[in-house]
């Protein structure tokens, strides 16, 4: 799956939003802003009587007032009659801010829209063409999917469109989880009886979800779980890592997937959680071990993936947890004695975060290493796959070809420059505090 959300940001070691759909938004914006301006000029002259456009059609483009109180261009994705109003014209509109990622899509009221700016031309076709152009460069989806949480790995145009179609409207707008009330980012396929809820309440420890606050409070009285239902495999200070087997704790695993999907765009919950291990990162205090992020991993990966999905919950982003999770996944690989790589495709931010990690690790070694070294040796030392090492060094221009052979440039000044650009490391993994043996299938 490899959709990377909210776990890292290059600069301040934080978890910025992974914009899996960012490019879509940006590219769409690039295409449509240019065209949009033109159209707006045309149509605003023509549509003096904007009232006749109500209720707005799906696909309409208009300016909308965002949380920063400024107007931003949006496209109407969906509409529904406002439950509180009796007037037929009183609709609510689900809009997509074309400058931003889909995660900021939301239901807005009519008053937030500036109807003077309505464009009536529905440019679906233009958009589709743009979409299909982008998508044909991808390969076909693999038919034999054996992982849960498949990213839109090598999706073709039709599948991606299909995915975006059924996930286009967020079903749950807000959730309450422990200390925080969090706006969701994406659609998550909760059981149908939950689809009408604007807000869900999650038990912080067992991750059961409920529709009303009182139900959660009643649940908390009987729920005695104070930490994820697995083995604690790492503890350093207040930071703990728990390993949960999807087979042994199926309901917890499913709950975690439902929750994570709210913040990951291209995660799918197609298959069951049996074949996965969940590594849940927690901050511990006298109330319990509170989840701040997690990553999932296949029990047996054919493609030597050492990580499937990774997420830092929004309230805990930009604190170094995401980078900790990446480093931790490689420490597990080292203990297993295998090289590993994250599941593909990575979102563009996912790629950046991993590049940051790879850069830091590899360049630190090159700074200290005296004699020559092979890519394979670097791979054995770090558990990073040779391909990833190569692409990292090549993207930094550190592999040169002179006098008939390849050399690695390790000028300290150059390396320091790259290290600075890669950003700080996140929280460090203290390997001495890791007590873990690789997963073994039982009888």
């Amino acid at each position, binding site marked *: 799956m490899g959709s990377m959300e909210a776990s890292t*940001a*290059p600069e301040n070691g934080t978890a910025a*939003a992974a914009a899996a759909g*960012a*490019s879509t938004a940006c590219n769409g914006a*690039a295409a449509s802003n240019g065209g949009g301006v033109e159209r707006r000029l045309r149509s605003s002259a023509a549509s003096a009587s904007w009232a006749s456009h109500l209720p707005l059609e799906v696909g309409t483009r208009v300016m909308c007032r965002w949380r920063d109180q400024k107007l931003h261009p949006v496209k109407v994705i969906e509409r529904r009659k406002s439950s509180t109003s009796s007037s037929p014209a009183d609709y609510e509109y689900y809009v997509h801010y074309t400058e*931003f990622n889909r995660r900021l899509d939301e239901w807005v009221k009519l008053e937030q829209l500036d109807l003077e700016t309505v464009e009536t031309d529905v440019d679906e076709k233009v958009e589709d063409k743009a979409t299909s152009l*982008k998508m044909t460069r991808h390969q076909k989806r693999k038919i034999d999917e054996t992982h849960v949480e498949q990213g839109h790995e090598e999706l073709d145009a039709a599948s991606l469109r299909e995915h975006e179609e059924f996930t286009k409207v967020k079903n749950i707008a807000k959730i*309450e989880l422990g*200390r925080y*009330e969090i706006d969701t*980012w994406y659609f998550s396929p909760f059981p149908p009886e939950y689809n009408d809820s604007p807000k869900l309440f999650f038990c912080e420890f*067992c991750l059961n979800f*409920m529709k*009303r*606050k009182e139900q959660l409070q*009643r649940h908390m009285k009987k729920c*005695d779980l104070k*930490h994820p*239902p697995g*083995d*604690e495999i790492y503890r350093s200070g207040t930071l703990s890592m728990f390993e*949960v087997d999807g087979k*042994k704790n*199926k*309901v*917890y695993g499913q709950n975690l997937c439902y929750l994570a999907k709210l913040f990951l765009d*291209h995660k799918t*919950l197609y*298959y*069951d959680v*049996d*074949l996965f291990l969940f590594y849940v990162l927690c901050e511990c205090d006298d109330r319990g071990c509170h989840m701040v992020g997690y990553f999932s991993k296949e029990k*047996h990966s054919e493609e030597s993936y050492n990580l499937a999905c990774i997420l830092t919950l*929004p309230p805990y982003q930009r604190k170094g947890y995401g980078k900790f999770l990446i480093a931790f996944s490689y420490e597990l690989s080292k203990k297993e004695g295998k090289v590993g790589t994250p599941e593909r*495709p*990575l979102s*563009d*931010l996912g790629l*950046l975060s991993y590049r940051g990690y790879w850069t830091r690790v590899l360049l630190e070694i090159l700074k200290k290493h005296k004699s*020559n*070294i*092979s*890519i*394979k040796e670097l791979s054995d030392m770090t558990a990073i796959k040779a*391909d990833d090492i*190569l692409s990292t060094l090549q*993207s930094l221009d550190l*592999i*040169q*070809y002179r006098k008939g*052979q*390849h*050399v*690695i*440039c*390790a*000028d300290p*000044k150059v390396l320091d420059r790259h290290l600075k650009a890669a950003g700080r490391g996140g929280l460090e993994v203290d390997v001495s505090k890791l007590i873990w043996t690789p997963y073994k*299938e039982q009888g």
Partner: protein
Amino acid sequence: MNRLSFRPRPLDIHKKLPIVKSARELEDDEPTLALRAAPPVLRHSQPEPAADGEAHPTSSKKNVQEIPTPQYDDVDTYERDYTRTFAQPTSYIRARGARAEIGEFVEYDLDNEDEDWLEDYNNERKNLNPEKLEVLLFKLETLDHKARERAGIITPTFLGPIPVILQLDSAMEALQYLSIRYAVFQAVYNYWKSKRERWQKPILRRLQPPPPVNDTNPYNVFRPREKAYRLHTRRMQRRENSVQSFDKLRVVRRNLEQAKTLMGALIKREERKRETMECEVHLRRIQMRYKHEAHLIDDGIALSGLQQAGSSEDDYADSDDTANEQPYVRSVAFHPRFPDNKLSAVPPLRLKRELKRRPHQNGWLFKRVPEMRDPEEPVMLFTRPIDPDKLKMAGIRPPLDPPIDSGTTAPPFRWQARIGRGGRIIFDRWNPFLQVPVGQETNHRPSLPEG
């Protein structure tokens, strides 16, 4: 010169690459080729955007910080809802198994429908409290599930509406211990049953079967795998029982049997070889003895010598000297270092060395019994007699007579030469009294390391 047309060899990841510490080294007269990652191994979920410049790390970083994300807020009642009752143990926490399997945890939580119904039903009175209702609904679900299990109608995936089998009276009986008034119980039972009929599936999520594997509805999740996942090992194929594997096994069996036959034949062959070897050895020994005998007969010693050998064998059995003299009398197969005493048990007709006597005659030939001569018999050089003239020519002389003590004169010793171990020339002195070439205890060995 157009360097760009020059294509470098592909990079071998096993080959050690030199690390160049100074950038200046790379800027020498020979322009180097900077290798950019041509087709990047990693692909984003979106292709490299050309115009937006997101591919370049630094500008994307700026975008990262500028990308807004949805917001979050604090929950006021948090401190109240979550109690400070967690005591972190000093050792790492171990999992204790899923709650559903151990103990009596009530997995079911009331949903909106249940709460609304309860409010209605209680109607300002306190017929039933929510916790009790929760327990009841949970128990009804599990009892019904067990009943369906016994009836054998549980399906592994969701294939159709799931009926309620549990009857009111059996439920009542099973849940007597909860001490619920009959009327209340009945109301709850009816409510639950009607809800089940509307839902067409269990209301407890754990008991709801997963969607079938071929279900294409994207809103349905957590399908089971098609077949049990097996550890991917080389044995994976053979665990299936199929015609293919049967044939393969048959072939394997045949091969093994052939191997067994081969081994048997091999063993026999080796045994025969050993027997042949032993026969040959025995033969050699006889030959040796026989040759020696022939030689002795020539010299007129023969049987008496043999008998002496028999008696003197014991005398010399323990002598240190014996250990070092090997001559040809010993059979070839034995290791030269074997001490004599071990071999005393060996064929009694074996002659001791002291009986071998080499006259100084020139051209003495080693007499052989013609019919025993085996053209393939290895030539044992050390059994050849020593030619005294050649010795003289080489300047090798017998050792000097030892100094005479107590004034007695002794006749000069007579020596016989032979080739000892390692090609050393050994002079054996004849026994001064017997005037026979006895040499064990009086041997003068010019150079032997062991004593």
